[in-house]
């Protein structure tokens, strides 16, 4: 494990690491969360950069209006994120990051966030009650499978975009295009691979199997 960096102001473990380039010279700053918040260290450089780029893109006047609007939206978001669990000290932003609750009390503290989260992670879109097992007739099976896969893939694509996982999204998009291009053709069965690679196929090939909110086996 790498050596833990200390906050340059108070000496607590540093969690905020800034790299500034001023006049071509690089400077690294390590801060703990408290000191960083005190000095607005996390926001300043980013906002400066955003200001610069917005003004360049939209001109002085329009740029200023956009920036004011953004600042307002951000402060509203900050107010919403301010919740903290009285028992374990978990904050809403930590919860968003780790996707784990800190204690039983968190379930009450963050009831709102949980309600938004539950339909996604507990798979409200799973098969409805009484859904019959997979069709056995092979001729039918291919059609059903193809239909299912485009829909599932499209759902997965939407999820991936929402989560900003663009790498996954691109793969899914290609899969959807490929499927749509040859709709009724059942996949050709591959001959047994000569190299005894019975086990080379990983389930990772099917991106839908990967869930975002990692549960345990």
């Amino acid at each position, binding site marked *: 494990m790498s050596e833990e960096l200390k906050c340059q102001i108070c000496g607590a473990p540093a969690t905020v690491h800034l790299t500034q380039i001023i006049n071509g010279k690089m400077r690294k700053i390590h801060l703990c969360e408290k000191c960083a918040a005190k000095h607005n260290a996390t926001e300043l450089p980013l906002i400066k950069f955003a200001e610069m780029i917005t003004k360049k893109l939209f001109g002085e006047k329009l740029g200023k209006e956009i920036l004011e609007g953004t600042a307002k939206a951000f402060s509203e978001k900050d107010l919403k994120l301010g919740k903290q669990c009285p*028992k*374990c*000290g*978990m904050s809403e932003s930590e919860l968003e990051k*780790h*996707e*784990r*609750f*800190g*204690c*039983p009390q968190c*379930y*009450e503290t963050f009831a709102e966030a*949980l309600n938004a*989260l*539950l339909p996604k*992670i*507990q*798979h409200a879109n*799973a*098969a409805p009650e009484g*859904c019959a*097992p*997979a069709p*056995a007739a*092979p001729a039918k099976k291919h059609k059903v*499978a193809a239909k*299912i*896969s485009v829909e*599932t893939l499209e759902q997965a694509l939407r999820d991936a975009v929402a989560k900003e996982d663009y790498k996954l999204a691109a793969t899914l998009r290609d899969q959807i295009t490929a499927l749509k291009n040859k709709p009724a053709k059942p*996949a*050709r*069965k*591959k*001959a*047994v*691979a*000569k190299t*005894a*690679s*019975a*086990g*080379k*196929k*990983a*389930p*990772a*090939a*099917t991106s*839908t*199997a990967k*869930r975002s*909110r*990692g*549960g*345990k*086996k």
Partner: protein
Amino acid sequence: MSDLKRFLADSNLLPHRSLPILISSRVRLARNLADKVFPERLSPQEREDIKQCILATLKKLPELADSVCFEMHDLALSEAEMLVERHLISKELVEREGAAVVISPDRKLSIMINEEDHFRIQVMDAEMNLSLLAETARSLSEAIARELPFASSPRYGFLTACPTNLGTGMRVSVMAHLPGLVMDGQMEKVVRSLNMCGLTVRGSLGEGSDAAGSIFQISNQRTLAQTPQKIADTLQDWLKSLVEQERNARRRIVRRNKSIFCDQVGRIYGESRFGMLISEGEALTGLSLMRLACDLGIFPEYTRVRFDELLIETQDAHIRFRNKIAGTAKPSELADRCRATLFRETFATLPPPDFSRI
């Protein structure tokens, strides 16, 4: 010899029964102590206190009489890895501070302490009676709850660190050997269909692992708003059709590519019988094919148990432990040589493949 060494070296208690296609089944319950912060957010001292409190209580339970208990900081990395290879603990538990595990003498039951949740109760079997497993796990968790109340809420049920386990906290999973569907190129479709039905498909070591050897772990996605019985029954129902699909795929392969398939089995048998260096990956793919050949009648029925044993015994940590090879999980020629020796010795006692059966 420490307790652990004796425990690990003793292979008499490995399953003596083995089914085609379905390797093993497991039910896992996630539970937390009422009014206590979940392990991840505890200080090391608090975690240690909770661990000791839980261990003291578990030792008193008649259900866990004669069980062995290991605190993770007492184990060498390779010893902990052996427990992972036997699915008695999770990979995560190895890295957790203040963690421990209690394992029943028949190794069908293990309780991980201070994993992601305070308790992870696991019941495993080579049989496929999922509702019986669920019942066993439930009665054990109730026995614990009589001593140490669990965190729960009327609205959600049992409260867990990760909301993916919320409610019943129950994950039912089955280890399935599906080389037919893999070779036939159907696995992707099957995974998608299973996903649609609320089941997750993973590699054999759970989350994030790959499906080497065509061994997959299939489990329920939802834990909330379903009774444990219903979760177990749903998976059990789907298994029937999955087994059917796998059998069909195997039939197709044998029908279309019989000579290529027989050639492969023969070659792998030759490597296993006479090879001098076998890597962990080769062992797994080879044994996967041997197990398939056994299911098809090329090897007699009793050999499947031997192949299952080898699947466990030829993994890296096991090989290093048995042959007292120092060092970490890096591939080494010495380990490969020891693995090949084990293969040669075992295969010398087995009959050669009989291709007239298919």
